[in-house]
């Protein structure tokens, strides 16, 4: 079995192992970096097969049902459940665990050059981070206890030619430069280059390309932490 088990990467990526084989292979994955890298690549190819299906669209009501069920989970209300959904609820936990195990074991990253966004994700994923709504724009500032912060802004026009959005952290005195962004796609997720002390304000102004040392205009929007 030991020599053959490496060959199970492809069947595993296709969910084509029986339960026993699957358990054995997952055990093997823990100690085999080669199989983990291979699995990363093969799983991406396997999931591409999902796109090849020419099937009808789901009933519009499905979206609402999923969001209702998600809301109930969050609010911890024990809802009335039909038998069908009750069966589903226990399956969800097992499903999340099974696939998280497979994904959590993946050691090698996929090619993804969005390093800045990844470091932003670290703050967004921090459960202790505080989220403050923006006034003047749609979005929020998410601030970790360390002061590391991410600005999430949506429905924002791209900055005009020759101009850029500049972020400022104002701890009380002179505002400090905290990064530039363009909102090319109508919004932005930006990791601030300056830490945000508790109680500080974060502001955004429109400045000339390259940014300036001190804000020249009124803030377009503000988050008061």
């Amino acid at each position, binding site marked *: 079995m030991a020599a053959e088990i490496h*060959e*199970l*990467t*492809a*069947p595993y990526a*296709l*969910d*084509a192992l*029986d339960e026993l084989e699957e358990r054995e292979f997952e055990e093997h994955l823990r100690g085999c970096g080669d199989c983990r890298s291979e699995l990363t690549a093969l*799983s*991406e*190819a*396997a*999931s*591409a097969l*999902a*796109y*090849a*299906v*020419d*099937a*009808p*669209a789901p*009933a519009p009501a*499905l*979206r609402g049902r*999923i*969001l209702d*069920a*998600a809301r109930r989970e*969050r609010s911890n209300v024990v809802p009335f459940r039909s038998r*069908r*959904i009750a069966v*589903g*609820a226990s399956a*969800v*936990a097992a*499903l*999340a*665990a*099974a*696939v*998280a195990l497979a*994904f*959590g074991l*993946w050691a090698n990253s*996929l090619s*993804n050059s*969005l390093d800045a966004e990844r470091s*932003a*994700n670290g703050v*967004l*994923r921090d459960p202790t*981070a505080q*989220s403050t709504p923006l006034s003047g724009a749609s*979005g929020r500032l998410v601030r970790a206890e360390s002061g590391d912060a991410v600005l*999430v802004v*949506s429905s924002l026009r791209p900055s005009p030619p020759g101009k850029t959005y500049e972020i400022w952290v104002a701890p009380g005195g002179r505002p400090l430069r905290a990064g530039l962004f363009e909102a090319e*796609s109508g*919004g932005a997720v930006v990791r601030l280059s300056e830490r945000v002390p508790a109680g500080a304000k974060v502001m955004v102004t429109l400045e000339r390309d390259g940014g300036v040392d001190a804000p020249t205009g009124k803030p377009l929007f503000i988050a008061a932490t």
Partner: protein
Amino acid sequence: MPRDFAHLSDEAVVALAARGEETALAELYDRYGRVAYGLAVRILRDQSLAEDAVQEAFLAVWRSADRFMPERAKASTWILTLVHRRAVDLVRREERRRTDPLEVVAPASGDAADEATWLRFERERVQDALKLLPDPQREALELAYYGGFTQSELAERLGQPLGTVKSRMFAGLSRLRQLLGDPTPTEESWQPRSTS
């Protein structure tokens, strides 16, 4: 519902879902719900079961978004893996896979207009890539991925040794990855195709 997160990457939307942002879950559904449901219907051949599989997969996304590691996998791969895993679990339980898995589900008619362009493009791209695979490889991938057959069941069904089935799966996935990963045709992969 406004799509506030329309400009964000999948991975950033997952991070927001991990913070309990319901609109982030809605955004992920708007991006992948249709592919997810199409896949589940193809495997399960039952709309109600397919809806269950999709609902459970998206709730698993909601519940475990905080554990998702974007540096290890694409969010879309994770979501579609959840859907696939659940649909395969259900089809094995229901013994529905005895129907011929190569039979094509009747394509949707009338709602093609509301299908996102990127989705149609992606479907054609993957279908084209599949056509370039040698028949035995394509057959192994389709029976496993859409049919929910295990490798041992496939070996029996195809009358081939297990080792052959495994190597067809491996060769098929590797080739598919190569075809999908490289948008410029290479000498090896390029084949003249008649325009129809």
